[in-house]
């Protein structure tokens, strides 16, 4: 046992021990460094930063907000109404009163009278001039009937109304001529 060899450590080992012991002096000094305590205000600020901000509105702010809401809703309703409501357009047209049928217009009745007369008084009706007027009157009566059917109840076609008035005028003139022949 006593004859076993011994070994010499390198100088590096002591150097490292020496360095560590030396550093211990600094570490000891560092461990004595003072610690500092933050004041309570810091937490209050952190807490305030974490809370969602609540904006306090003054009374006139509420009025402004309410007015804005009403305006927005009103605009929305208006635009929606515009979108869904069918568009109604109208126009006025003035008619020549001379061309309009008069309430007292009784040319149809006069025509019926002439027809009834010709059934009984065939002599007068066989007169060629009278017959020619009668043929013309029949044509005008047929045109009048067609126009009245086309116009319908509400007289919405001014051009047809003007034509009808013209036809009725011609009928009246022919009826006058026929009356003088009877």
């Amino acid at each position: 046992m006593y004859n076993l060899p011994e070994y010499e450590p390198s100088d590096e080992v002591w150097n490292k021990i020496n360095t560590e012991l030396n550093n211990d002096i600094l570490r000891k000094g560092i461990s004595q460094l003072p610690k500092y305590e933050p004041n309570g205000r810091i937490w209050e600020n952190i807490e305030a930063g974490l809370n969602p901000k609540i904006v306090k509105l003054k009374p006139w702010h509420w009025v402004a907000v309410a007015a804005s809401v009403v305006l927005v809703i009103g605009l929305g309703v208006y635009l929606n109404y515009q979108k869904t409501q069918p568009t109604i357009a109208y126009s006025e047209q003035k008619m020549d009163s001379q061309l309009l049928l008069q309430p007292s217009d009784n040319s149809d009745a006069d025509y019926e009278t002439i027809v009834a007369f010709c059934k009984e008084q065939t002599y007068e009706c066989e007169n060629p001039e009278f017959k020619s007027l009668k043929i013309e009157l029949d044509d005008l009566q047929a045109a009048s009937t067609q126009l009245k059917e086309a116009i319908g109840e509400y007289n919405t076609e001014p051009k047809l109304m003007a034509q009808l008035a013209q036809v009725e005028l011609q009928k009246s003139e022919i009826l006058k001529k026929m009356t003088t022949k009877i």
Partner: protein
Amino acid sequence: MTDSDLINACLLNDRSAQRILYDRYKRAMYTLAYRLTSDFDDANDVLQDTFLDVFRKLETFKGESTIGAWVRVILVRKAYKRISKPKLWELPDEIPESGEIIWSNNIDGEYLEKAIYSLPEGFRMVFTLIEIEGYSHKEVANILGISEGTSKSQLFYSKKRLREILS
């Protein structure tokens, strides 16, 4: 309550849990903030901003380190930003071979504190992070955006300056 329990409660925005977490780390973090900025007002702002970030971004904490270490990294970055990137002394990255600093037998804590605050900002920051907070040169290089060589060089010369002040 463990850190893990606290984190889960804080994630639910439990204010009392957030307060406990703050109380648990406030002293160490405030002290570090003051060491890095050497100004109590700046330290207050840094601490406040740090914990606001901690609570707002807690869901990004992946648990790869302790929560304390995570908070500390946030604080160091905020302090570094606060003192608007301290000018690091342009020093050679190579450290002299006879580079060991021999300290006197006893260093008084209060005296050391004053000596640390008399260091230039760059020296103070590297010395604080490595010798006081226990960061590695690699970590400091990563946080401050410098090379490891620069970090080692800054530390050596900051200690040399401290030794001169303390002697």
